[in-house]
């Protein structure tokens, strides 16, 4: 009845444990990194939103400078967009309505970037208004680089969240 120890199977067990622990460490590292990215992006959007929310008159004028929208639409957006940014930023921090917030922020960054490019092509002398007066003297390349970096971060988080959501649904 006494079983003799099987060295081969115990080695396999140790190896599979090591693999599981390595993948666990990888997952934890990726989670920590994505949380850091969450906080960084949330900070950017909350800060940008707050700067614009305290001076909607200036922001309406910044939107109007793009010469894409009628003035009443610029005013409506000047009141609305900062709060949308702030709410989405808070959603990233608290991981509440998380994927919705990432989608809205990604879409808005794409729209802002296209508007900046369109203004540049049309030769408009604009203040982007992205970060209130802080971004007043940003050059076109720095605008573009900042927006693309933010978009890359948002898309990375969105892809990760989508995969995690899919995995949870299948388990």
């Amino acid at each position, binding site marked *: 009845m006494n079983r003799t120890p099987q060295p081969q199977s115990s080695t396999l067990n140790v190896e599979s444990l090591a693999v599981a622990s390595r993948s666990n460490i990888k997952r934890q590292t990726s989670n920590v990194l994505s949380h850091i990215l969450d906080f960084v992006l949330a900070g950017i959007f909350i800060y940008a939103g707050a700067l614009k929310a305290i001076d909607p008159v200036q922001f309406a004028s910044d939107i109007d400078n793009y010469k894409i929208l009628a003035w009443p639409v610029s*005013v409506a957006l000047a009141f609305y967009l900062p709060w949308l940014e702030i*709410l989405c930023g808070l959603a990233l921090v608290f991981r509440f309505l998380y994927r919705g917030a990432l*989608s809205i922020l990604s879409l808005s960054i794409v729209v802002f970037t296209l508007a900046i490019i369109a203004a540049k092509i049309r030769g408009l002398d604009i203040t982007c208004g992205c970060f209130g007066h802080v971004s007043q003297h940003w050059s076109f390349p720095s605008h573009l680089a900042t927006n693309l970096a933010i978009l890359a971060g948002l898309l990375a988080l969105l892809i990760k969240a989508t995969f995690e959501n899919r995995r949870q649904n299948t388990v």
Partner: protein
Amino acid sequence: MKSSLVRQGLVLVLLALLPAAGEAIYFRDKISWRSAIAPSEMVTVEQARGWGDAAIWVDARPDDEFASDHVPGAISLNEDRWNELLPQFLAVWAPGKKVVVYCSSLSCNASREVARRLRKEAQLPSVFVLEGGWEAWLKKNR
């Protein structure tokens, strides 16, 4: 899964309406929904020229653009060097004078901003933005 993403997005979009509406009510007296600049604050090249010596022309464009050309007699006052240039402007200003601020064109923002600061920070009463800016002045004068 897609529907939950859209639902989340919609909740956020609708939630943001509440503080936005509150802010719109709070700022109702500080912003016009009809025009970026109230018509009473705009002036055409002809009107401003008609004021003659009663008008002080203020160039809100960057230094290099002012250096290359400007309205004769205009004073440079841009936001880049606001603290440095404002005292020079105030030394020329006198009560009863009308201030005409211009920047490069219709699409620029600098003249509107400088005019706003002159009214708000320097408490000047008669500050106007030149319609069409430097481009409009050039068209009428060359």
